[in-house]
């Protein structure tokens, strides 16, 4: 028998309330200010570096994202965006439990779906707004600092970067949301989320090659590298970095390029011609599996959170 009424009744109300909560939350404001301030500092460093390069580079503007100091902007994003996303999500559902508001809200004529969907979309919206602000600031600083406007191709690639970063943020937010459903204590959810983040971002890239070597049966060097890369890709940060490397540099035509270069192998060996820039669509096609992987992972985490939440008892 079908249940009566729309599952999304009340969705908009929850979303608006949650967005208002996020933007007035001190934690979120601090995190966003932190990431924006760091980004500005990094971009200023990048501008100084770029000024020293001759203007021969046709994609000078994109270097804003990939150059600068010890930590370019994209590396900063891959590191700090998860932190903000986890900060937004770790107490989403268990916070309602602990404030004892959950049963009162669920006794209103809405389904649980509306609450969880509302919280998810509000988090995603908040992250998107913050990242758009950050992105516009970077573009603006670039315009002022470099004194040359970006061309259409560069803007399109920067836009793809923005969308991918939002998807990346979505993954970590979905992860934090899942833990906020599973763990009744907000502190536990926050620590577990941060633990998973540290593991996937820092430890996994260190350990995965050894694990890959233990299971691989490939005899040649390329086979081994392939296996290692597949293992490393279990980390969303690795996926994000692969996407970014290809999207922001039109001369990159494979996600294995830098790895092969490090081994002294040219892409020629795999039948490619290096260095000629490729169009944006081709770049996106190269990393399409990674993009799908990020979005798919986000959806999968949300579905698990949804199922657990639907089956959860309301009372403490």
């Amino acid at each position, binding site marked *: *028998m079908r*249940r*009566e*009424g729309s599952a999304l*009744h*009340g969705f908009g*109300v*929850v979303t608006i*309330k949650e967005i208002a*909560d996020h933007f*007035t939350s001190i934690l979120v404001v601090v995190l966003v200010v932190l990431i924006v301030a760091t980004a500005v500092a990094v971009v200023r460093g990048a501008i100084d570096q770029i000024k020293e390069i001759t203007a021969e580079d046709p994609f000078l503007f994109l270097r804003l994202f990939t150059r600068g100091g010890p930590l370019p902007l994209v590396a900063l994003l891959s590191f700090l965006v998860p932190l903000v996303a986890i900060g937004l999500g770790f107490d989403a559902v268990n916070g309602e439990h602990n*404030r*004892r*508001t959950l*049963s*009162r*809200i*669920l*006794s*209103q*004529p*809405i*389904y649980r779906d509306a609450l969880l969907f509302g919280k998810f979309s509000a988090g995603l919206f908040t992250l998107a707004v913050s990242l758009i602000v950050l992105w516009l600031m970077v573009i603006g600083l670039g315009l002022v600092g470099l004194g040359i406007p970006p061309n259409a191709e560069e803007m399109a690639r920067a836009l793809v970067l923005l969308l991918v970063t939002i998807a990346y943020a979505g993954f970590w937010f979905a992860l934090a949301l899942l833990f906020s459903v599973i763990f009744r204590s907000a502190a536990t959810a926050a620590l577990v989320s941060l633990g998973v983040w540290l593991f996937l971002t820092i430890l996994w890239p260190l350990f995965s090659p050894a694990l890959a070597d233990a299971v691989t049966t490939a005899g040649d060097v390329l086979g081994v590298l392939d296996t290692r890369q597949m293992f490393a890709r279990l980390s969303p940060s690795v996926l994000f970095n692969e996407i970014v490397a290809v999207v922001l540099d039109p001369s990159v035509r494979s996600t294995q390029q830098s790895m092969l270069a490090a081994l002294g192998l040219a892409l020629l060996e795999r039948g490619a011609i290096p260095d000629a820039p490729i169009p944006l669509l081709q770049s996106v096609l190269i990393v399409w599996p990674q993009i799908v992987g990020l979005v798919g992972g986000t959806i999968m985490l949300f579905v698990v959170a949804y199922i657990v939440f639907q089956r959860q*008892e*309301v*009372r403490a």
Partner: protein
Amino acid sequence: MSDNVITAQKLTKRYNGVAVVNGISFAVARGEIFGLLGPNGAGKTTTILMLLGLTDISEGEARVLGHDPEREPLAVKRQVGYLPDQVGFYDNLTAAENLRYTARLMGLERDAREHKIASALGHAGLADVTDKRVATFSRGMRQRLGLAEILMKEAQIAILDEPTSGLDPQATVELLNIIRDLKHRGVSVLLSSHLLERVQSVCDRVALFSQGNIALIGSVSELGRQVLGGGFRVEVEAEGQGLAGRIAAIPGVQRVETAAPNRLLLHADRDVRPEAAAAVVAAGGRLLRLSVEEPSLEAIYTGYFKTHEGERHAA
């Protein structure tokens, strides 16, 4: 259809095979205050959650205003107001903002919303803290804010879980007054409590819970008669000669005790206050005070379980 707003038929809830509510049946009539009473963990809250469709029913059937809470939860929740045990609000929002959020979840029209919020807060005695953040509210104020939410909803049924637990006597009295006010508005009230004597005064009928079962159901005086053998205790304070003898002659009076000079304690099988008053006046005495002691729920509860414990041990 009879005029019952809530009916439960053999309602059962099992967690991992253990029944926490075990085949209970009861009905709440329109406009009455019905109390689910019993110790913590007896299954009261679980019963309430099943009636609201907030937890699955393992077995049996519930109808709330003719709707099945499992299949039509929205229809049930539109017309039922719920005050959870230790209700919580968003501390960073004001009283009015908290109600505004739930009003929008209820789908109240924008025009009606503000008026309803103001009037509900007024009825709950919170008019002067409308724009104060809930973080500053006392326990009693939070409970009243929860009742204001039910008033705003214009619910036909109010389900209150432990509304008076943790409140000081003054706050309890205020809260019970609002609950009586709900009844005067024609709202049927289902409330649960483990504090028997506090809610005794407001409940028309009660169901006494024990380990997932309803042990007794009925009005307090009915239960008193059933369990305690129907002892009415009437206290008469009067000045006059030979009153004890005259009063003892009233049909229904089983025993007369002289508690103090001019104070008599009657044990009767019914309320004999009118006859006692007449007897005092007929004897030319001065009647100073006349009161009947309702059987206390506490006594009923312990009385019931004493006998049943005994039976269990005998068996």
